[in-house]
């Protein structure tokens, strides 16, 4: 059944899935990412140590008790790495979600309405392209954070500072990464708009919202998924970048970037604590590699280049 090339044509999604499964490195990357996520979720509750549990074993090298060693406060690196993975990947996925919504809505509206609306909306994208994205993210975070804090305080939240910072990170990183998405979606929508089946729908009296939802969005879905996976490593990287500089996630929470920053602080001429840098760095690099392979695999599977 699954091999059948019979009379019923496969949907584009099915065809892409079939091609994707033949891309061995991409499939391996997907498995790797699933393993990282699974381990990060399952391991910490089972571990003997909490992520912020202090102990006398400062700077213990990797051993049977602490598989990846401990840091300056005697905290177990493996558990902290797992918690860091949760935060880093969560920020990546949530940022990608913000990027998805903003980029698709912006691009689809601009491309569909066209004319003056289109040129105004796209000029806005041009303006934002002029400001380096990391700088924009930093400025945005500073603006949004107090708003978030007030909002969380109103809900009597106990972990306000850390949560506010996290929410702001999602928004800021999503907000700087939707520009390319908007451009790509607009281009696709522009070309779809003049196709016969859209004209037919319009002649039959369909509303713009219906046409967008029914005809345009499903047809740009492939491109959107591919660009989303390609944007994901960028967002994970930006989060680590900000956390490394100390303006990302805040204290009780840890991410790969802040773990790396802690490791960098401990560089000294007397003893070398290589595990504090090598493990977080290695995991980050492996994840970025896997995300890149995954994006490439999806792009080949949806065959974006031939489409556009």
């Amino acid at each position, binding site marked *: 059944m699954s091999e059948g090339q019979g009379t019923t044509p496969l949907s584009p999604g099915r065809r892409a899935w079939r091609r994707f499964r033949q891309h061995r490195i991409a499939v391996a990357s997907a498995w790797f990412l699933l393993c990282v996520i699974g381990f990060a979720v399952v391991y910490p509750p089972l571990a003997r140590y909490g992520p912020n549990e202090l102990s006398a074993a400062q700077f213990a090298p990797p051993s049977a008790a602490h598989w990846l060693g401990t840091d300056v406060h005697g905290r177990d690196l493996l558990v902290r790495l797992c918690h860091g993975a949760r935060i880093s990947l969560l920020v990546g996925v949530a940022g990608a979600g913000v990027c998805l919504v903003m980029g698709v809505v912006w691009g689809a509206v601009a491309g569909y309405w066209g004319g003056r609306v289109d040129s105004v909306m796209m000029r806005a994208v041009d303006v934002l392209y002029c400001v380096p994205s990391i700088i924009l993210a930093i400025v945005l975070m500073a603006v949004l954070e107090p708003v978030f804090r007030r909002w969380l305080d109103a809900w009597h939240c106990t972990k306000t500072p850390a949560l506010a910072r996290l929410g702001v990170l999602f928004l800021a990183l999503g907000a700087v990464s939707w520009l390319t998405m908007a451009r790509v979606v607009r281009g696709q929508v522009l070309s779809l708009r003049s196709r016969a089946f859209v004209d037919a729908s319009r002649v039959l009296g369909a509303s713009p919202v219906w046409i967008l939802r029914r005809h345009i969005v499903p047809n740009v879905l492939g491109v959107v998924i591919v660009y989303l996976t390609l944007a994901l490593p960028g967002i994970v990287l930006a989060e680590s970048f900000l956390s490394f500089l100390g303006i990302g996630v805040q204290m009780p929470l840890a991410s790969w970037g802040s773990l790396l920053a802690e*490791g960098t602080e401990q*560089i000294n001429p007397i003893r070398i604590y290589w595990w504090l840098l090598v493990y977080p760095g290695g995991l980050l690099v492996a994840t970025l590699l896997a995300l890149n392979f995954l994006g490439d695999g999806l792009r080949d599977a949806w065959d974006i280049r031939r489409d556009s």
Partner: protein
Amino acid sequence: MYFLKRILWLIPLLLVVSGVCFALLRLTPGSPFDRERRPASPEIERQIAAKYHLDEPVWKQYGRFLRDLLRGDFGPSLKYRNHTVNDLIRQGLPVSMSLGALAFCLALGIGLPVGCYTALRRGRWGDYVGSLYALLMVCVPVFVLAPLLVMFLAVRWHWFPVALWGSVRHAVLPVLALGLFYSGRVARLMREGLLNTMHAEFIKTARAKGLSETAVLLRHGLRPALLPVVSYAGPMLADLLTGSFVVETIFQIPGLGAAFLNGFLNRDYSLVLGLVMLYAVLLVFLNLAVDFIYTLLDPRVKYE
């Protein structure tokens, strides 16, 4: 003509950028005098605010900012009381520029040959090794590479100084940390560009004329193959300047990245705004330069 139009279009563009930045920075809470050296009395605070025109309506402040900007004056720094923003930029810019330029040269110096080599040896051992190098470099962020370089090359083996800026030996590690990542990107773009070009019709024609493979490559293949690299080079230079945030922090280099971070943490509006404008102007002009170089490299590229 086209480029004249582009340059004229820059004026409103930069105006809007400056307006947005100004508004955003003013929306951020916290005054520049919050952290330290808090004025002793409300009166003194009012006087300081008056001196820096912080008591005027926002639109008036923006007008003042724009007027000064046209004269190339970014105004006084709000944190370093006896310095203007121009002073701080004048101190930091040469450092960041030389760091960025060296890293840029390193990225092109490694990236272009590796890209060409892997494209020409496609599917053989050299290709796999070179492509693996490029991929690895792309996936190792600056803030992973730089601490590792410091830890091993500087602290462990004492080959290079750990931090600071000044001599050639001081520059080696920061430039490596900054440049290697981009060398990977350049190598991948160069490989892709050359592979695409070597399949083109005009290369077939050149071969059919009986030119040697070297001549085909140098006279016909290389120029159009450079296009992807060139279009990346503009944003790359801007990235090098901002990417240096991390490098400047780790190696304690007194450049613009360090200035920006400090300015941001101290809510030094005028400093941050000045630097954002500087980056924006830089990025815009680099992109313009890229489009111009396009027309030189590829005769098929024509703008209206």
